[in-house]
């Protein structure tokens, strides 16, 4: 490595630090204030809290129905994720390892989904769900989440599976395994690295989704975390510290998730973004 000029170093670190501070400050400020009492906060929003008012958290958890929203989000996120990955990997397998007449068309159809804004489909989906009496059910979210994330899932897995050598299946055929057996026992296990990316990506997208939930869910008992939070903050305008506690509670799991799995998440999101 060559030497770098000190001027450049100063410039670089100043810029990087500014960027980092900009990213951290709003969150840091929120977390700090979530520990204050309401009076303490309105007196001085910049001071460090004098004591840790964990009571804010207990109260926010209770008033904001956080347990209900968390459970709903977990359930919907995981069911959609499992269905997406299962159906998506199966589709990716046939698209990657077989040649048939409609292969190209099917593959392009799946990719098309990444170009389409979900807003162009929102109204028909709402009306379809209404007709099927699925409005305000878990299924009304699970179906769209699955459908819209199949594109990216198929895309990433297909690309990965296509790279496998052909002899993989041949050895399976020698042993008398059928197509689905080969898929399940040979292909799926070696697809694991790409699968991890897909799972993480699906998790984040489902966990964060708002628009479908806003339109398709009405009862409080079925609201997901983003919808419930937005609703809570809209109603609970009196206490900022309570709002901040609720937001911090919701923020912690996703930050922990990110810190643990950031490498795969970054790779997945850039792959998705580049092709999206």
């Amino acid at each position, binding site marked *: 490595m060559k030497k770098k000029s000190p001027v450049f170093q100063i410039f670089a670190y100043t810029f990087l630090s500014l960027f980092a501070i900009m990213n951290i400050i709003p969150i840091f400020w929120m977390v700090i204030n979530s520990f204050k009492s309401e009076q303490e906060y*309105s007196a001085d929003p910049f001071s460090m809290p004098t004591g840790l008012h964990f009571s804010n958290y207990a109260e926010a958890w209770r008033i904001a129905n956080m347990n209900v929203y968390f459970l709903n989000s977990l359930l919907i996120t995981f069911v959609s994720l499992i269905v997406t990955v299962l159906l998506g990997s199966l589709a990716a397998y046939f698209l990657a390892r077989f040649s048939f007449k409609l292969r190209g068309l099917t593959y392009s*159809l799946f990719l098309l989904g990444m170009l389409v804004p979900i807003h162009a489909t929102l109204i028909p989906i709402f009306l379809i769900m209404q007709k099927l009496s699925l409005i305000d059910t878990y299924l009304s979210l699970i179906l769209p989440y699955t459908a819209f994330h199949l594109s990216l899932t198929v895309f990433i897995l297909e690309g990965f599976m296509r790279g496998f050598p052909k002899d993989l299946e041949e050895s399976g055929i020698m042993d008398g395994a059928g197509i689905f057996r080969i898929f399940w026992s040979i292909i799926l296990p070696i697809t694991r690295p790409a699968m991890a990316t897909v799972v993480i990506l699906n998790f984040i997208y489902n966990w964060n989704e708002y628009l479908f939930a806003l339109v398709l869910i009405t009862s409080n008992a079925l609201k997901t975390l983003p919808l419930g939070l937005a609703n809570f903050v809209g109603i609970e305008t009196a206490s900022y510290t309570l709002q901040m506690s609720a937001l911090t509670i919701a923020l912690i799991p996703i930050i922990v998730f990110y810190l643990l799995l950031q490498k795969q998440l970054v790779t997945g999101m850039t792959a998705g973004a580049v092709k999206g």
Partner: protein
Amino acid sequence: MQTLKRSRFAIFIGLFPALVIYLGIAIVPIGISLYYSLMNWNGIGSMKFIGLDNYVQMLQDDTFWLSVKNNVIIMVTGLIGQIPIGLLMALLLNRGMKGSGFFRTVGFMPVVISSVMVSLIFGMVYNTEYGLLNNLLGFFGLESWQQNWLSDSKWSMLSISVAYIWQNCGLYMVMFLAALQNIPDEVNEAAELDGATGFKKTRFITIPMLRSTLMVTIVYSISNSFRVFDLIQVLTGGGPAHQTEVMTIYMYNSAFMNLRYGYGSAASILILLFSLIVISIVNRVTREKD
């Protein structure tokens, strides 16, 4: 050919479930939207075919054009904010400085936070009385700079753009970073042998090598800007007086607040159309240069 027939059946079984859900929920509804957009319909009564009337009416609606203007603001500020900052961050981080792992981690963090959460956090930052921003200005004795960030029409779109840029910069940063790491070492070595170092190398070697990534990020940023909904819906709901409304919110309000499903569908078709047009223009312009 026994096996061929069997595999054909297997292919069908394997693809069918995914295709049904995907086509039924993600693709066919676009066609249905198009169909509804030609109807006058409140969702309950009977549908009445009115041709292109919804579109004609929309193109004459000032609120619609206000929302288009706001989309353009988001698009332009997004492009100006996210791509240069993302690129600069990536160029700096790619030099393998101390702590670059930390900066990358912190830089990407907002990308994984949901738009709703970002919106709620910035709602507090912009709060007129208790918000971080106004308090910070007061702290530095800049009381005259304090504003009603979200309700003053001079500032509201800009405030929203800042939150939008804040949320997405990190994504462009890692996209550029990934591209930078794919530049083969030989290119860098050759450039250095020719005496290109520092800024010169960046300007004449690195940036041109990033051309295709640059195009991808531009197209991505544009198409994303047409999809902004959560952030604004939660932050301002499009108000005050439609001042921060974008096309997606216009569509949402038409269909789900005013129960004009045909009209809302026409808006959704226009969103699709506008984003496809802008993207194809960008594609054409960049291709001609090659």
